[in-house]
Structures are given as structure tokens and as C-alpha cells.
């Protein structure tokens, strides 16, 4: 009996000793724990602040991270020397020029239709210029901010020229190649019902499939976004045999977007785009920009940073817009070089012409 009490006491003492040792260690390491705790807070605070100071992050990093497509004709695709080229690539470069004055200070991150939003949300890219349609849910619910429109796209129709059709309303009874499960399918049904004509759908999965089916004559009409139709047409062995009809049956405004909540950064991207549009409006091009420095038009002087301190307001250098025009060109130059009538895509300006020239491209005044 006596012996067992000794044993139990020993056990209790031993456990207490262990406990005390732990307690002591904890006490001694308290400072470390505090540091750990602080660092966790610091990381959390950093995560929070990263949302707020994208411009500073970009400046500190030394280059812009811009999300583009994995390859879309005219918008963003690597050229023979591995440089990204296209309307969206120019948008990225314009922002890089605005911040650094150097068109090469940009890293292109390729994103797909599925990965683009998480990539932007997680801060892996500073902005997206990835022909993304501006919709309410993306703008509001996903927590992004569309800062403008750099291409007005819309669903169109392509037919063989030999079909002798000049308007989509004449397509009664046609077989239409249509990507299933997309909004284009719904738009198509709406359009034909509205015009009281019928069609037969040939479901396809990818753009390539649509192309092959149309070229092989298995369908009379192929419908997708107008820019996509143009690149499909350009890829045809004999492009003149195909024709894009004038009807555009949906709104697809494509534009650059940034994360919600960082208005300073949003402004930089927004006004980089606007500067290109305003430059076209004012007739400032990459060729005549130096001569325009001594222009007598006040808005030109403001745009080029000769008058006013608009660069300072954006926390950029005062010649930011001058540099964009000098190194990238105005909107028209970028359009003509990448998707315009002289490129294989042959997309007419259409809606993308300036508001003064029958389009809807419009930038707020630079003052």
C-alpha cells in the first residue's frame, strides 16, 4: 500500500515536471511566439495593402504583369521573334509605357478563359487585357473593374460568297454551325425567332470545328463573334470566297480590367486607354507627336504634358501620354496595325470608329 503511494506520487511529480518544463519553455519562447504572431499579422496586412497599392507594387517590381490570351489572332499572339503583338498586347504595353516610359517593361502572363479571373483576383497579374466582355456580373459580382472598352465586338454571320446572300434576314432554312452551350446559341435563336425565319443547327465544339464544317460545306452559315469570324475568314485557303454579313446581333464590349478597390491603379489603366483614343481624336500620331508639342490646340498640349500637371495627378511622369503615343501610337495606329483592313483579319472600323466618324468610341475630355 505504502509502496504504491510512493509510485503514484512519483508519477504525479514527473508529470508536473514535464508540464513545468513545457510551461517554462513556452514562457522563455514567448517572444518568439509574439514575433510569429506579428509576422502573421504583417502578412495579412500586406495581403490587404497589396490590393490598395498596385501602382507602387508595379513600380517597385520594375515591370508590369499583364494577363493576355494564350493566342488570339489580332488581339494577342507571339510573333516570330517571340514578342507579343496585338490590340490587347498594345494595351498592356501602353500601361507599361505610362508607368515606366519603356514599352519593354511588361511581362505577358498567358491566361485562358477559365483561369483569367482567378489569376487577376489572386494578384498574379496587375491587369487583364484579354478580350473579356464587360458584363454586370463580372464588373460587380466577381469584384473587378472594367476601365474601358478597347474593342466593340458582337456576334456576326459568315457565309460563302456563292450563296448570294447580303443580309442575315435572308437566311431562312439555312444550316448554321453553332457552338453549343454558349450565349451565341441563345442569341442566334432569338434573332431567327424575331425575324420569323427558321434554321437548322449543326452543333460544334470549337472554332476549328466550325471552320472545317463551313469550308467543307456541311453548314451554310457560321456564327460567332465578328473578330473570330474575321480570323476564320483570313485562315481560309481563298478568303474572297467567304463573306461576313453586316448584321451584328449581340453586344460584346471587350476591355481591360483591374481588381476592385484600387482606384488609383484603375485610373492609370483607364487613362492609358483614353489617352490613345483622345490622341486619335486630336490627330496626334506616333509620327507627328514631336511636332505636336508646339501645337496651338490646348487639349493637345495638356495631353502631351506641355501644360498642366495631369501626370502628377496619376502619380506618373508628366510626359506619360506623350510616351504612349510615341512608343505605341494612338488607338487608330494600334487598330490598323493589328486588326484593321490592311491586316489579314480585315476588320473594318465599324463600331470602333470614333464617335465623330460614325462609331461609338468615345473618351472623356482631357482636362
Amino acid at each position, binding site marked *: 500500500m505504502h509502496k504504491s503511494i510512493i509510485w503514484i506520487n512519483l508519477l504525479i511529480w514527473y508529470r508536473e515536471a514535464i508540464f513545468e518544463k513545457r510551461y517554462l519553455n513556452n514562457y522563455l519562447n514567448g517572444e518568439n511566439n509574439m514575433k510569429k504572431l506579428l509576422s502573421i499579422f504583417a502578412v495579412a496586412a500586406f*495581403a490587404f495593402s497589396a490590393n490598395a497599392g498596385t501602382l507602387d507594387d508595379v513600380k517597385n517590381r520594375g515591370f508590369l504583369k499583364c494577363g493576355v490570351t494564350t493566342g488570339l489572332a489580332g488581339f494577342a*499572339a507571339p*510573333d516570330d521573334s*517571340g514578342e507579343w503583338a496585338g490590340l490587347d498586347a498594345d494595351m498592356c504595353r501602353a500601361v507599361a509605357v505610362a508607368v515606366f516610359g519603356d514599352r519593354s517593361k511588361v511581362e505577358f*502572363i498567358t491566361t485562358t478563359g477559365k483561369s483569367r479571373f*482567378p489569376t487577376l483576383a*489572386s494578384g498574379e497579374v496587375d491587369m487583364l487585357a484579354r478580350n473579356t466582355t464587360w458584363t454586370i456580373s463580372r464588373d460587380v459580382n466577381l469584384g473587378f473593374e472594367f476601365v474601358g472598352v478597347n474593342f466593340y465586338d458582337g456576334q456576326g454571320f459568315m457565309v460563302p460568297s456563292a450563296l448570294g446572300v447580303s443580309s442575315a434576314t435572308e437566311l431562312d432554312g439555312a444550316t448554321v454551325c453553332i457552338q453549343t452551350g454558349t450565349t451565341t446559341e441563345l442569341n442566334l435563336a432569338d434573332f431567327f425567332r424575331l425575324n420569323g425565319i427558321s434554321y437548322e443547327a449543326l452543333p460544334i465544339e470549337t472554332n476549328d470545328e466550325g471552320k472545317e464544317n463551313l469550308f467543307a460545306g456541311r453548314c451554310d452559315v457560321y456564327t460567332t463573334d465578328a473578330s473570330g469570324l474575321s480570323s476564320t475568314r483570313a485562315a481560309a485557303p481563298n478568303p474572297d470566297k467567304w463573306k461576313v454579313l453586316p448584321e451584328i446581333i449581340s453586344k460584346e464590349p471587350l476591355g481591360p480590367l483591374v481588381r476592385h478597390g484600387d482606384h488609383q491603379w484603375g485610373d492609370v489603366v483607364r487613362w492609358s486607354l483614353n489617352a490613345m483614343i483622345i490622341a486619335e481624336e486630336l490627330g496626334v500620331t506616333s509620327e507627328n507627336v514631336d511636332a505636336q508639342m508646339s501645337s496651338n490646340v490646348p487639349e493637345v498640349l495638356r495631353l502631351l504634358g506641355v501644360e498642366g500637371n495631369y501626370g502628377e495627378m496619376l502619380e506618373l511622369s508628366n510626359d506619360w501620354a506623350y510616351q504612349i503615343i510615341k512608343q505605341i501610337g494612338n488607338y487608330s495606329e494600334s487598330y490598323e496595325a493589328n486588326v484593321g483592313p490592311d491586316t489579314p483579319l480585315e476588320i473594318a472600323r465599324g463600331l470602333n470608329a470614333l464617335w465623330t466618324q460614325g462609331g461609338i468610341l468615345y473618351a472623356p475630355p482631357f482636362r
Partner: protein
Amino acid sequence: MNEMNEVRKPPVATTGFIGWLRINLFFNWTNSLITLFVIYCLYQFIPWILDWTIFSADFKYNYLGEQITNQEMCSRNLDPENGGACWAVIYVRFYQFIYGFYPKVEVWRVNIAYAMLALALLPLLYAKLPYRKYFLYFTYIFPVIAYFLLNGGLGFTEVSTNKWGGLLVTLVLGCTGIALAFPIGIMLALGRRSKLPVISMMCTLFIEFIRGVPLITLLFFGMVMLPLFLPEGIDMDGLVRVLVAVTLFQSAYMAEVIRGGLQAIPPGQYEAAKSLGMSYWRMNLLIILPQAIRISIPPIVNTSIGLFKDTTLVIIVGILDLLGIGRGTLADTNWLGLSYEIYFFVSLVFFIFTFGMSRYSLYLEKKLKTGINMGAD
């Protein structure tokens, strides 16, 4: 009488070329019919494919003798009646197909890495290589060298993985996935067959979970969800995230393949090893695994080839592997519409690698005589 002792020759119809033809191609009327049909198909197909890929194809110049710089200059686009493939697109874009967007001044590093990869594979391919032991040491340290060589560090300027692409990414993903998955797979297979319930349950859970979801899901998980869980300061490289996903995926499949091999080992082998007083690890390392892996070579190579081809899925998370570069090229307005050439080239490269792998497995099987029954009956 002597005439009777003369050895009679076998009938002409059963020996030599004619005999071979009769036995293999024209044994009965169904065989003959199939043979004739196949010959007809080849007769139709082979001249056409040879003409398209070689005889009427443009390699660098079109039929006018101009150097081709865009699709409009291809012979078949200048004159749709004539002209075959337009390989000029591959010629012009060859750098991108092999190195992606790797800076040109640093590309010697990739070339050295490719050469070292060949050197590292050498002792694995030829068992009779002189000084094989030292070559093997090199094979073990090759991944470390390759990491610094390709990524930068140790005096090399850093090249962001964002600039990697083409065959480089395909090989990095394929080789790392296969090489890492092998040991992990072995551990998982042993773990799943372990008698310790926690270990076996965890391994089973892991394997079944990974095998239960498609690779695309894992890639998305790695690419999209992982950065959301990590705090913003911790930046995990995109390629690393994909590598993790690919390796996890491959190791689960590898584990099941090796488990198949383990289960084929007769219990007598285990009992014999235990009766010699061997520990669990010694038994597995010396007796069980060598036999199990030997009989699972065909399925191991099978899943490895599968993985090598599955790496093309990384396009959906925005990494431009060989196929991705091909698709990017197709999106260049200069090269629109050359999909046949580009897909043909990409599939040819994949064929070379996967065919090489399957030949290697045949060589291994022959060398290790896996066909021989190892007393399992």
C-alpha cells in the same frame, strides 16, 4: 536405294519469302482479303502523304524561290491546285517550339541542359556503359544542376518560368513528373499494403482521391485555388504549382501499377525473406520490390507515356507547352490557317518521344526477362 535416303527439300510454298507470305498474309481467304484491302489503302495513302509532306512541300522557299515569311507566301496559298505542306512556319518558329520565349542570349543554358539530360539518360539506357556508376551519380545530381541552369541562381541570371515554353516545358513537366512520381508511387503502394491501419488508410485515401478526379481538376486546383489559400506575400511559381499537381496525379497512378506488381509476388517470397530474419525494409528492398517493379515495367511505361501526353493539358492553365506554342503560332495573323502543318509537327515530336519510351521498355523487358515466369505458379 540411295535415292530414298536423299533428304527431300520442303515444299517451296512453306519456306523462304513465299512461305512467309503464305503463312503471314495469305493463310486463308479472310486473311487474303484483309491483306489486299490494307495494301490498297496504303497504295492510296502513302503516295499522297509523301507528296504532301515532302515532294510538293515548301521548307523554306516557295515555288517562286522566295523565302516564306507568312502564310500568304506558301505555295499552296499562292496556287491552291499545287503545293503541299508549308513547313516554313516550323522553320521560322523553330526557336519558339524548342525554347518558348527563353531569352536568346541565355539559350545556351537550355542547350546545355538538353545535352546533360541526354547524358543523364545514358546510364539508364545502356547497362553496359563503361564507368556506368559515375554516370549514375551524374544522373542523380542532374535535376539540381538543371534547376539552377534553367531557372537561374548561382551566378546565372534568373529567367522567369513565364518565359519558358515549347518542348522545354513539355520535357520539364514530363521528366519531373515521371521521375518524382516513381519513388512516391512506391511509397504509396507499400503504404497501401501496410498492416498499419493509419498508414494504409491515408495512402488509400490519397490514391483514391487523386484517381477519382481528372488531371484538369488537379491542374485547376494547383493553378487557381492554391494562390487563394496562400497569403499574398508568398508567391509560388506557376510552373511549380502545375508540377506539384502533375506529380501528385502521376504518383497515385504509379502506386496502383506497383501495387499490381506487389500483389503478383507469391507469398512464398515474403515468407522466405521473413524466415531469413529480414526486416520489413530489407525484405522489400532486396526481395520484393526488384521483382515487383520488374513485372510492372510495361504498365509503368504505359502510365509514363500517358503522363507525357497529358502534359499538353497545361494549356488550360495558361502555360504554353509544345502544343500551346503551336496554338499561339496559329493565332499569329502571319500564320493563320496552317493548322495541319503545326499539328503534324507537334504530333511528330510527341511520337518520337513516346515511341522511344515504348522501345526502351521493350529493351528493358528483354534484358530483365520479365516474360519468364518467376515461380509464381
